[in-house]
């Protein structure tokens, strides 16, 4: 059965892809037409952070209730989040190449933060695969998940605001909203955020159902 929010998500993404390439955008130096990447790059990161948030929420739930269902959902959400980091990185690299002139720079704390976030979740999956007992794995990986999520947020939310960053809104740079997030950008940007979050939820829904079936199969 297809639920309404799945259709809404697909329609919103279709809208942002079609209208995002057609509508008029502010003409800015250096950014030029690449400003349209704000419809793809930023919402994909939001979707990733949203999935990481879902993952940590169910990790907390797992610890308080000690049920395997939350653990399965937490694991799947982390996988979807990590999956979304790939298009997020690729669109970010392309944007960086055409505005800052390089694919990757170690000078920017947000880029470093993202690399660390990817490493953290890879470590999370390695930890999961190294424990065989299911209940034990659920508990220990939930502990690591919560700890890692807090440290990752310190890294990508707090530190960039204190040091120099090339990203807007960080380290003395003006926020996007202040100079170029005009109404024509907003008509695509906000639907794009909602659309990508819904699509990530759809992927999570499918993956979660598959994982539950697999879990049931192993039990029998």
């Amino acid at each position, binding site marked *: 059965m297809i639920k309404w929010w799945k259709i809404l998500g697909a329609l919103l993404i279709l809208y942002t892809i079609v209208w995002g390439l057609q509508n008029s955008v502010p003409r800015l130096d250096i950014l030029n037409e690449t400003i349209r990447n704000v419809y793809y790059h930023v919402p994909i990161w939001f979707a990733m952070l949203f999935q990481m948030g879902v993952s940590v929420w169910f990790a907390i739930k797992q610890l308080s209730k000690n049920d395997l269902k939350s653990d399965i959902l937490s694991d799947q959400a982390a996988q979807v989040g990590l999956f979304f980091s790939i298009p997020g990185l690729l669109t970010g690299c392309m944007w960086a190449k055409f505005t800052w002139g390089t694919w990757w720079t170690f000078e920017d704390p947000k880029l*470093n933060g993202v690399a660390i976030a990817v490493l953290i979740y890879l470590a999370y999956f390695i930890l999961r695969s190294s*424990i065989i007992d299911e209940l034990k794995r659920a508990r220990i990986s939930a502990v690591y998940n919560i700890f890692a999520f*807090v440290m990752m947020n310190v890294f990508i939310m707090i*530190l960039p605001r*204190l040091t120099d960053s090339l990203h807007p809104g960080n380290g003395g740079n003006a926020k996007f909203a202040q100079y170029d997030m005009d109404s024509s950008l907003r008509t695509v940007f906000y639907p794009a955020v909602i659309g990508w979050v819904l699509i990530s939820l759809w992927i999570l829904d499918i993956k979660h159902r598959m994982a539950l079936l697999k879990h049931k199969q192993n039990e029998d």
Partner: protein
Amino acid sequence: MISVPLTHLIKKEFLIEFRQKSTLAGIFVYIISTVFVSALCFKKIINPTVWNALFWVIFLFITINVSSKSFLQETKGKGLFNYIYYNPRHFIISKIIYNMLLMATLSLLTFFFYSWFVGSMVQNMGMYLLCLLFSSTAFSGVLSLMSAIASKASNNISLMAILSFPVLMPLILVSVKLSKFAIDGLAWSVSFKYLLILVMLNFVVIALATLLFNYLWKD
């Protein structure tokens, strides 16, 4: 559960360590030889950034090596004993306090040998030592929990490194920045912000470690 006071637990950690002097001596030799190898490789370091980075890399490996054994020695039988006799909160706090003292001492030792063999470049010594102190306490908070997690998993040191490196990264970056300020001899007002972040990270890390350890405790 019979609750044993915290002070006894801390005392126990020290007793175990001093009874087996070989591990402490091992750490001592490890520090001297790593610093000596880097001194031989680099001969003379002129660039303060390189000096700082090398110091933190050496220190990072020392801390991971030292802390990985803090839970690895807790075997299955001992775990049951601990579970009956100790309060989990006291248990992790005693481990963290012990690791803090150990790592603060080790950081001073490393710094001493490093400045002896490679040469010191620090201009604001007070700030540098404060930075060393607070980073080693925060390191020990993170590493105690990571060591507990690794000991519950497959119990190997490589897992410990895989789990801790990414989580330690925000801490290391703040420490590197702060110690660089101290090396350049900048005024206290400039680096006060970073010192504050380091202290706050200490609180966050220790609070999280004590909170989450409860769930690692039961088997």
